[in-house]
């Protein structure tokens, strides 16, 4: 009698660089995807035990609970300064910050600009979801013109609040920047591109080429007031036209993976 042979092969596991703790993020939020991609890249590079992360103030304030590595929690916007301090006295460590748009592009605008300008050997993961999530959906520096938030209830009026801040475009102008790219997390193809970009950013740091940042267009269904599925569509239809995806700066010496 012929037996059916069952072969079990594991194709999907939790990266070692993530802890077992379940996240506090809302259903449909893309922070979880971003966390996982970073963890996979750190695993693949084999640098988990040599990495120090810095969490921001915002929805990802508790990121240190989810990454299985040494972590500091910075003051609002100051993660690049804290990362600078860590990296300068520990040049052999991999140091990265994880920051939202309010943290990086508003209150921490000076710190991120000067970290890039100095060519600080750190990697920045910039989550742009066009809103302040943690405080309940207020206008961010990246909020789109006309976008309704709890502090722009009639929609962002550019006469009143000015224009969205395009951080990749700004930071790519600094000579210290080695790798500045914008990716999106709204579908599988883009998620795969985002992961490659994260790998390149960490490689740029490891190769000592300068400052690296990956901006990730992300969703916030809760504060946008739409379903998770519609939120992903909204990234594509509304955010991508304002924040074009692409490579804003890639150091000529970077060996891209």
């Amino acid at each position, binding site marked *: 009698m012929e037996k059916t042979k069952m072969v079990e092969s594991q194709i999907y596991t939790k990266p070692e660089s993530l802890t077992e703790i379940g996240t506090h993020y809302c259903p449909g939020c893309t922070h979880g995807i971003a966390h996982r991609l970073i963890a996979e890249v750190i695993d693949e590079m084999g640098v*988990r035990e040599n990495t120090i992360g810095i969490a921001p103030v915002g929805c990802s304030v508790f990121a240190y609970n989810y990454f299985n590595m040494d*972590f*500091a929690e910075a003051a609002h916007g100051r993660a690049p300064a804290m990362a600078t301090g860590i990296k*300068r*006295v520990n040049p052999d460590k991999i140091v990265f910050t994880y920051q939202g748009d309010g943290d990086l592009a508003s209150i921490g605008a*000076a*710190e991120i600009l000067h970290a890039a300008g100095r060519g600080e050997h750190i990697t920045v993961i910039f989550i742009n979801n066009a809103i302040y999530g943690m405080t309940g959906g207020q206008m961010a520096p990246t909020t789109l013109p006309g976008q309704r938030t709890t502090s722009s209830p009639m929609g962002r009026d550019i006469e009143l609040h000015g224009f969205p801040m395009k951080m990749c475009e700004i930071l790519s102008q600094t000579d210290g920047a080695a790798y500045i790219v914008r990716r999106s997390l709204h579908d599988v193809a883009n998620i795969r591109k985002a992961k490659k970009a994260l790998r390149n950013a960490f490689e740029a740091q490891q190769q000592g080429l300068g400052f690296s940042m990956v901006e990730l267009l992300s969703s916030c269904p809760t504060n946008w007031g739409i379903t998770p599925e519609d939120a992903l569509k909204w990234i594509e239809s509304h955010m991508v036209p304002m924040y074009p995806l692409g490579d804003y700066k890639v150091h000529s010496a970077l060996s891209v993976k």
Partner: protein
Amino acid sequence: MAKELLKGNVAFAEAAIRAGCEAYFGYPITPQTEALEHMSKRMPELGRVFLQAESEVAAINMVYGAACTGVRVMTSSSSPGISLMMEGISYIAGSEIPVVIINVMRGGPGLGNIAPSQGDYNQMVKGGGHGDFQPIVLAPATIQEFIDLTVEAFDLAEKYRTIVALLADGSIGQMMEPAELPPMRPVRKFKDRPSWALTGAKGRDPNIISSIYIDPVEEEKLNLKLMKIKEEIIANEVRYRDLMLEDAEIAVVAFGTAGRIAQSAIKTAREEGIKVGLLRPISLFPFPYERVKQVADQVKAILVVEMNGGQMVEDVRLGAEGRAPVTFYGRMGGVVPMPDEVLEEIQKLHAKLKGGS
């Protein structure tokens, strides 16, 4: 080592280097910029870290980051710059990271001026930044003391995992005096970094450094821990200097530069037969309340002299507990009182006491 003629700002910077300070982050501000300049030359010479930050806000957060990895780190600034650092100071306190901060005070409020002042007593001594905590605050009156206290500050910061702030002023920062520097201590080896430090989670669970405790009960536990450490500091680290207090009927209480000026006035007053002495608090937190109480029991009157509108005087009154009347003399805005002015206040008090007896 032999004594050499040293400027205050250079002296404390070099003292920090010799105490094993591995990284300095700062921003230029008068009247302490010579410290930053000294560090910019000496730290790279020794293979250590010097970085001029884009602001004091960034500088204190660079200090915070570097100190999280278990190395000796410091910054220095002057009043307006220290105001900008208050956010970071509170975070550092909330995550129990040892850090040394030097404040070479100048006249204020606002942009004020660059002349010596003691106007930041309340800001630094009563906490600095939001939340329940008090850093150790030490006040030097001479260049030698500036050197010695800077070295001690690193040890105290690590002993209690706290911020230690030195509260000097523009005159101590700018003047030159003969003083002796300590011998060079080596910087800490990587393997000797403390167990709580962020050094990479190799063969151990991750270390997390954070000042967020979202559960109020947990936050209160941290607060209680900080209060317990505060009690230990109060019990062990009070520092002051007495001068001619043995038979004194009048005690002058003054810290830092004001203490030096008062010392000159007291010597003249003694020549005039006035029984006056000086109590000079060196640790402003922990404040020498007990010593003030003893002095208040002994003397007939206390005169507090400060280069501000009357800040430490409140602590002297708390310490005196009404056992002796406390009067105050101060100059503000960067005006340094002359010994004659203080002498006149002592003479007035003396005349009043005589008239009353």
